C-alpha cells in the first residue's frame, strides 16, 4: 500500500512548526501505523534527514505511550485501539493522512509528535493513590467487595493515561482521565479513607494545569482505546458533591 503523510514537524518547544508532506510506499496492509513511521524514519535517516520523533513503548496497546491525531481522530479512525494497534488496512490505498500531535495547553509539544504529558503525573501525585502501609497480602475474604464494584473499578483501572480523551475533547478537558482514577479508588474500600481529599486535590490540580471543563460531548469515551465509560465522570461529579457540598 502507498500513502501520503502530512506530518507535523516541530524542532522544539519554541519552534512554530508546520506540516511536511512525505510519501511512503510498499507498506504491508497489516503494518501498524507506528511501523509506517519506522519505515519513513529509515528513509529519512538514509537521506541524512532528521527522523520524525514520536512516543512509543510496548506497541501492544497497554502502556499508553503512543498517541497521535491521525486525520482528525485520536489514535486514528478505529475504536478500542491505540495508535500502535492501528493497522494500515483501515485506510484505503493511496490515502493522504494528516498526522498531528495531541493539542492542549497542558500538553506542550516537545518535538514533532511528542508532547509533554507530565500534567497527568502531577494530577496523580495530587491524590491518585492510597496512602496506607502495605503489609502482607490480606486474606481474600477479609475485605468484602461487591462483584459489580470490583468490575467497575477494573474497567476504570484500564485507563492507560494516553491522553486521547484530552486530545479529542473540544474543550481539552481531562475529566475522563481524572474520573477513571477517582472512580477506581472510590469504588474500593481501600480508597474510602481519602476519597474526599482525593477528588478535591485531583480536580484542583486538573484546573491548575489549564485543562478545559467537560461539556458532556462524550467524544472522550468514543476515542478512548480502553473504552473507559463517561459513567465514571458521573461518579466523579458525585464524589465532588460529596466532598464539597454535603
Amino acid at each position, binding site marked *: 500500500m502507498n500513502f501520503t503523510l502530512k506530518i507535523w514537524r516541530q524542532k522544539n518547544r519554541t519552534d512554530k512548526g508546520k*506540516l511536511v508532506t512525505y510519501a511512503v510506499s510498499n507498506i504491508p496492509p497489516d503494518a501498524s501505523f507506528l511501523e509506517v513511521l519506522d519505515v519513513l524514519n529509515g528513509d529519512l535517516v538514509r537521506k541524512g534527514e532528521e527522523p520524525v520523533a514520536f512516543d512509543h513503548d510496548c506497541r501492544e496497546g497497554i502502556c499508553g505511550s503512543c498517541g497521535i*491525531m491521525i*486525520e*482528525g*481522530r485520536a489514535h486514528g*479512525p478505529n475504536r478500542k485501539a491505540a495508535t500502535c494497534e492501528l493497522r494500515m488496512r483501515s485506510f484505503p490505498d493511496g490515502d493522504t493522512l*494528516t498526522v*498531528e500531535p495531541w*493539542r*492542549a*495547553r*497542558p500538553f506542550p509539544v516537545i518535538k514533532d509528535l511528542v508532547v509533554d504529558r507530565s500534567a497527568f503525573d502531577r494530577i496523580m501525585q495530587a491524590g491518585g493513590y492510597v496512602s496506607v502501609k502495605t503489609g502482607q497480602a490480606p486474606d481474600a475474604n477479609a475485605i468484602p467487595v461487591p462483584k459489580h464494584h470490583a468490575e467497575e473499578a477494573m474497567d476504570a483501572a484500564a485507563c492507560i493515561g494516553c491522553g486521547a480523551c484530552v486530545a*479529542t475533547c*473540544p*474543550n*481539552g*478537558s481531562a475529566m475522563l482521565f481524572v474520573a477513571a482514577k477517582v472512580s477506581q479508588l472510590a469504588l474500593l474500600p481501600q480508597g474510602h479513607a481519602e476519597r474526599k481529599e482525593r477528588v*478535591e486535590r485531583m*480536580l*484542583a490540580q*486538573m*484546573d491548575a494545569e*489549564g*485543562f*478545559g*471543563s*467537560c*461539556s*458532556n*460531548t*462524550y*467524544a472522550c469515551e*468514543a*476515542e478512548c482505546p480502553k473504552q473507559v*465509560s*463517561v*459513567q465514571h*465522570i*458521573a*461518579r*466523579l*461529579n*458525585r464524589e*465532588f*458533591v460529596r*466532598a*464539597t*457540598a454535603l
Partner: protein
Amino acid sequence: MSKPVAFLSSSVGRKMLMALSGLFLCSFLLVHLYINLFLFKQDQGAEFEMYGHFMATYPLIRPLEIGLFAGFLLHGVIGIWLWIMNRRARPVRYSVSRAGDNSTLSSRIMWATGTVVGIFLVIHVNGFFVQSRFITPERPMFEIVREAFTNPWLVAFYLIALAFLAYHLKHGFQSAFQTFGLRYSRYERLIEFVGMLFWLLVPLGFAAMPLYFLWAY
C-alpha cells in the same frame, strides 16, 4: 478551604451552577408555555389576560421575576466564562478535525445555540415584557401578541430562534443530569425519555403560537 469556596473555585462546581441554572430556566419554560397555551382559547384572550394581570400585579411574582433574570444572567456569564477557559485549553487548533465521528453536533455548539437564544431573548423581552410592563401597560397583552405574530417576518424569526432553542435543549437537558452525576443509574432511561419530550414538545408548543396567529388573524 471552606466547602462553598472549594465548590465554586472548581471547574466542576461552576459546571454544576451552569446545570442548575439551566434546569431552573427549563422550569420557567414550562410555566411560560402553560400560560401561553391560553392564547389558543377562543375567548379573545380573556383568560390569557387574567393570567397576564396576575403575573404583572401579584406581589410574590416580583422576587421570582428577579430570580429569573438572575438565572439567565448566571447561565450566560458562566457559559461565557467556561467557553473562554475551554478555548484557552487548546491554543493551537488541529488542522484536520473529524469531531462529527465521535460526538453530536448539538453537544459541540452549545455556545453558538446559546448565544442565538440569548440574542433572541433580548429581542423577545423587549418586544413583549418591556412593552406591556413599562411602555404601554394599559394595552392588552393579547393585542400586542396579535400585532407581533401577524407579521410574517417576525414569525419566521421566532421559528428560527425556537429551532435553536430546541437544539440547545437537546443536549442541555440530559447533560445537566450527567453533570449532577445522576445519569448512568436507574434513572438513565427516564432522563433520556423526559429529555426527548422536553426538547421536542416545548419548542413545538411555543412555535405553534406565532403560526396560529399568522393563520387565524
